[in-house]
């Protein structure tokens, strides 16, 4: 990358709100139903039908707005965005144009620094507004036309628009991670990108460092994962820098990310852009959102990831990095705290989750909430380590066994006879045997070669099949060699 340039990125995230019914009708929002099953005259836009706002969707939207420190609008107003497309049955989308339910907030993101630390950045939120989703066109395997599935039509979406505050693809990625974490904490969306309940478009421009004006932006669409957003914005930044370096001009346009090719391609230019002819939706009368309603929703806000991260650091003595990792996924943070409720040592539990448990979960593609090792059991294992019943090394073998069998650490340790040997007499006996078997090394140590002790401890541990308490082994060997 050319370091004379600074990328400027803004993200538009569409989140499907996890209401039971659609935004303006009573149809179910279930995913994966047979095509056009969840439809009615309203979401099919049949002549004469009228929309009625789903209050739960509004509550969810306000909840997100409050969590993002937005100003919640005093008046709720919807607008029509007019355009023709077969997936849009009314030929307009009910959205919010000039009076979004939420505006002017911010999101704190944790960006990993090159030194392996964490840096906090504050990203402005321009607005977060309610709108209905469109249906889905199906082209595959259909000769001579397309089919349309309106199940998704009318699903409640919250479009969250960031300020152009992001300065790198990594920050864009971190923004999405933080946003997703908040949405999950709020329990307002499944945030499942595969099912389309979270979608992201990116506005990307570049400018010379030190410039105060923004460069011409391109809007990038069709990115299907957070990593794709990172890759696509990276590609687009480099493409725009190349354009500028060749003394050409960046064109304002919409570009599509092609994941397979790893490139963006022009879809339409600004000149071809739609005139959406927004105007106030006359079928939904504007109404006042009472401050009491907003305050009542504020009372329902859970602890959010950033606060939790700080609390983990303060109360449990975790490093910012560890705390950051644990809080990003609500269920992981919950799992961690459940372990602590079972009297697990906070730091040890954090280490064991992050170094061992997550690896096992990843390997078996199991989510934390479905972990066969329950918080009580992980806490149990950590306790066994803490009270020297097993060594850390042995514990690393115990955990996979727990994972496979779902049994407690105690049960596995007992069944396999893995208790740590803390009986000094037993260790002394092994120590004697080790010294006798390695007279030269013992002499080296006596002669002042301190590293020689490590070898002897290793031998002792091997002899004890790893069960000897390493500290005791160390102490006893040292005494015996005096």
């Amino acid at each position: 990358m050319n370091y004379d340039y600074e990328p400027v990125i803004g993200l538009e995230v569409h989140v499907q709100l996890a209401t039971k019914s659609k935004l303006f009708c009573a149809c179910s929002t279930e995913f994966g139903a047979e095509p056009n099953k969840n439809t009615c005259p309203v979401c099919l836009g049949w002549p004469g039908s009228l929309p009625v706002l789903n209050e739960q969707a509004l509550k969810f939207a306000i909840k997100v707005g409050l969590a993002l420190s937005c100003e919640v609008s005093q008046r709720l107003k919807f607008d029509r965005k007019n355009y023709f497309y077969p997936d849009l049955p009314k030929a307009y989308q009910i959205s919010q144009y000039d009076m979004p339910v939420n505006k002017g907030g911010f999101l704190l993101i944790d960006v990993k620094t090159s030194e392996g630390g964490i840096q906090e950045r504050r990203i402005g939120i321009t607005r977060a507004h309610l709108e209905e989703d469109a249906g889905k066109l199906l082209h595959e395997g259909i000769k001579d036309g397309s089919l349309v599935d309106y199940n998704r039509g009318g699903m409640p979406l919250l479009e969250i628009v960031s300020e152009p505050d992001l300065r790198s693809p990594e920050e864009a990625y971190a923004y999405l991670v933080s946003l997703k974490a908040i949405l999950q904490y709020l329990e307002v969306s499944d945030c499942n990108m595969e099912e389309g309940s979270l979608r992201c478009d990116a506005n990307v421009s570049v400018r010379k460092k030190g410039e105060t004006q923004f460069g011409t932006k391109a809007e990038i669409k069709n990115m299907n994962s957070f990593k794709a957003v990172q890759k696509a914005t990276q590609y687009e930044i480099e493409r725009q820098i190349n354009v500028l370096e060749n003394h050409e001009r960046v064109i304002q346009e919409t570009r599509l990310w092609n994941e397979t090719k790893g490139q963006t391609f022009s879809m339409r230019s600004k000149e071809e852009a739609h005139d959406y002819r927004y105007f106030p939706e006359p079928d939904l009368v504007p109404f006042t959102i009472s401050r009491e309603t907003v305050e009542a929703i504020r009372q329902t806000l859970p602890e959010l990831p950033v606060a939790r991260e700080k609390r983990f650091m303060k109360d449990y003595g975790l490093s910012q990095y560890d705390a950051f990792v644990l809080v990003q996924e609500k269920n992981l943070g919950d799992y961690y705290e459940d372990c602590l409720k079972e009297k697990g040592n906070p730091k040890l539990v954090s280490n064991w989750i992050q170094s061992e448990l997550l690896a096992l979960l990843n390997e078996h593609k199991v989510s934390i909430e479905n972990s066969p090792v329950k918080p009580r059991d992980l806490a149990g294992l950590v306790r066994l380590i803490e009270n020297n019943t097993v060594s850390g090394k042995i514990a690393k073998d115990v955990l996979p066994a727990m994972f496979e069998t779902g049994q407690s650490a105690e049960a596995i340790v007992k069944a396999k006879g893995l208790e740590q040997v803390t009986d000094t007499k037993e260790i002394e006996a092994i120590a004697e045997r080790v010294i006798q078997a390695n007279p030269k090394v013992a002499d080296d140590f006596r002669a002042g070669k301190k590293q020689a002790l490590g070898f002897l401890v290793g031998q002792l541990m091997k002899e004890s099949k790893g069960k000897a308490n390493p500290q005791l082994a160390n102490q006893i060997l040292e005494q015996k060699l005096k």
Partner: protein
Amino acid sequence: MSDNLHQLTVKKAIEFASKQGAEPILKAITERVKILNLQINAFLRFDPEKSFPLSPVSRPLPLSGVPISIKDNICIQGVETTCASKILVGHVPPYDATVIEKLKHAGAVIFGQCNMDEFAFGSSTESSAFGIVRNPWDLERVPGGSSGGSAAAVAADMTVAALGSDTGGSIRQPAAFCGVVGLKPTYGRVSRYGLIAFGSSFDQIGPITKTVEDSAILLNVLAGHDHRDSTSANAPVPDYTKALNRGVRGLRIGLPSEYFVSGLDSEVEQSVREAARIFKNLGAEIVEGISLPHTPYAVAVYYIVAVAEASSNLGRFDGVEYGLRVPAKDLREMYFETRDQGFGEEAKRRILLGTFVLSAGYYDAYYLKGQKVRTLIRQDFEKAFQKVDLILGPTAPTPPFKIGEKIDDPLAMYLSDIYTIPANLAGVPAMSLPCGFTKSGLPIGLQLTAKPFDEETIFQAGHAFEQELKLFNRKPKL
């Protein structure tokens, strides 16, 4: 009695049906429709077979056995509903409009679907894709519009009562032209659910009847909050028939000076002024020269805001889901061809106009400004109603005009709604009722306008006036 069953009012039909059943009435009007519709073309569809057999009129429901005809832009489950447009030929709604549901629950018989201007765009019912409607009083003249079919059917005793819809006068102006009673209720009084939208912030469904009393009886059934229509009002519904006999003593009735200006036909003016004298004789206080200063802007504002909404509302007729689809080489062409062949000239004119006023760069100058003037017009009424209880004026500036007279002159056509449009802009209730006839025997209507949700005062005054002249006894010679 049985010789003129077709002449029954709603009130009388209820009485008759409760004793002798509804079939004789249905037979009578069916026979009449079969003969007269060939000339008048008030009905697009009526299927006598479907109206029978009736469930016996056993339970005394509010409208048991009363045939009501429906303007063709109100959805009836399982029955083709077209808005008199080619683009909706074959369109069968899968659900009943709320008003249809209410009529059915009240025991009414849904009797045929009435012709109209295409998508309610017009003031003469000449823009129907399925032929013009003729005025029963003079077959060479228009019945008004857009609910011309509904009004003509009631006037010609081809039905007992009908529903119309009123966006800028589409109930009242044809009622005036056909010598019947047409009520546009307060915006929000009657659910719009199932009314195929023209101008969503203007549209109201209302009754077209032979008498003011019938209008009150029907509004009792039609009015009320509907959870499916966010714009319907959650205001209590009084028994409107109780207002009928209150008399007009003490009522303050205002005549706006802006309504009696050039362009108003002298016979119409005379008739309306005579009506004011009658009200005075009946004990009302006539307040001359009240002012609705923004009246001159009403038509212009209406043709900005209403067509803006219409252009958006009609986007859905795109050949994808329902109605006409003209096959073409690609999606774009399919849209073009379908909409080009499906919509008539006036619909296209309004879609273009509406699209234009909402376009980037023009929105502020037209739509936004239009909305501001709309607020001023609403305030005109608020101020006027501080001084008076009712506003009296002509419904239309002229008696019914000749077929073909204005169809090629949209501006002249638009001006025939000059007195009816303000009520839609302000959302207030207004009724047209007969107040006389021209020398050549054409009906003249007066308009009574009241405060929002004060239909009672309209019924009160309208009934008193009607009982005085009993113009409902005069029938067109058919």
